[in-house]
């Protein structure tokens, strides 16, 4: 199975799906391709964006892909601690650092939703700013979003900036775990995708190098770098 198809199929089968990315891995493009393929399969599309993450991603994707507005149009946007994102007119703004209040507000708004595609962005940005809140918010947000039936939950998260205990916690909650790394050789950047955990066990620990093009993601087997 092609790695993009694998992520799509795995995310439909079980949730949540964590995209564990490193800086430079161009995870924005991966998110774009995933959402583009998944969106039509769900009744609703909800973006929960912490610390302006969606604002950053959409601006970057808008510079690369012509149809970004089409892909993300009509999304139910909830902004947590927006600074620049207010200009995107989120349906809800939550302005507090308190994890329990944030999850309470999210629960009140989203708990009854089913057959919904959830995209959670910027939890890592929030965790850098409020590290003591991270162990509270991660399990709680997964619990709230998982409460409806047939929900697909995609969460991007950079574990590299956090201590080992945070990485272990994230990994323990991720039913699908995909890793996006960067390898540097003589100032040449290579991007690598690995399957850490997913229901298709025959793919566990398999890796591919990938290239981002305007039309698609191109994957080559981990043994072939070029």
């Amino acid at each position, binding site marked *: 199975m092609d790695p993009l198809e694998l992520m799509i199929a795995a995310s439909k089968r079980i949730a949540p799906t964590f995209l564990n990315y*490193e*800086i*430079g891995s*161009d*995870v*924005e493009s991966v998110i774009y391709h995933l959402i583009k393929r998944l969106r039509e399969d769900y009744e609703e599309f909800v973006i929960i964006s912490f*610390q*302006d*993450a969606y604002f*950053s*991603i959409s*601006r*970057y994707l808008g510079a690369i892909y012509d149809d970004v507005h089409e892909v993300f149009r009509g999304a139910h946007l909830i902004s947590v601690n927006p*600074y620049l994102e207010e200009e995107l007119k989120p349906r809800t703004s939550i302005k507090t650092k308190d994890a329990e209040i944030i999850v309470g507000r999210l629960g009140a708004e989203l708990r009854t939703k089913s057959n919904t595609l959830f995209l959670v*962005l910027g939890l*890592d*940005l929030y965790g*850098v*700013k409020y590290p003591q809140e991270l162990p509270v918010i991660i399990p709680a947000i997964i619990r709230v979003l998982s409460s409806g039936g047939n929900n697909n939950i995609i969460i*991007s998260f*950079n574990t*590299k*900036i956090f201590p080992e205990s945070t990485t272990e916690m994230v990994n323990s909650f991720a039913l699908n775990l995909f890793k996006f790394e*960067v*390898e*540097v050789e003589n*100032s040449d*950047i290579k991007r690598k995708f690995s399957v850490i955990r997913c229901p298709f066990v025959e793919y566990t620990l398999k890796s591919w190098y990938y290239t981002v093009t305007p039309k698609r993601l191109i994957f080559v087997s981990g043994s072939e770098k070029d």
Partner: protein
Amino acid sequence: MSKGQEILVKAISLALKEVAPGLEAVLEAHLKATMNKGLEVAYENPKEFKEAVSKLFGEYSARLLEMVIINKLEGRLGGNAEINSLEELVEEIKNIYGE
């Protein structure tokens, strides 16, 4: 290099080593090629530095790196105001060191 500039460059270097090991040299090469400057441009023109990082790593990663840099210095600067951007951080350092 001024004291404020030195502090910021050290913080950026530390942040890069932590969150993107191996990419510090790539970023420095990119800054050199596009602006003929090093990491010190972050102090001279934080907005331009952020744009350069965004072009290289993407805007989301640039925002993440920005927050890690702020996190590295915010506690040490001892100010009461919350710092949300590299521009605000540089402003705060300049105020403290009178630069």
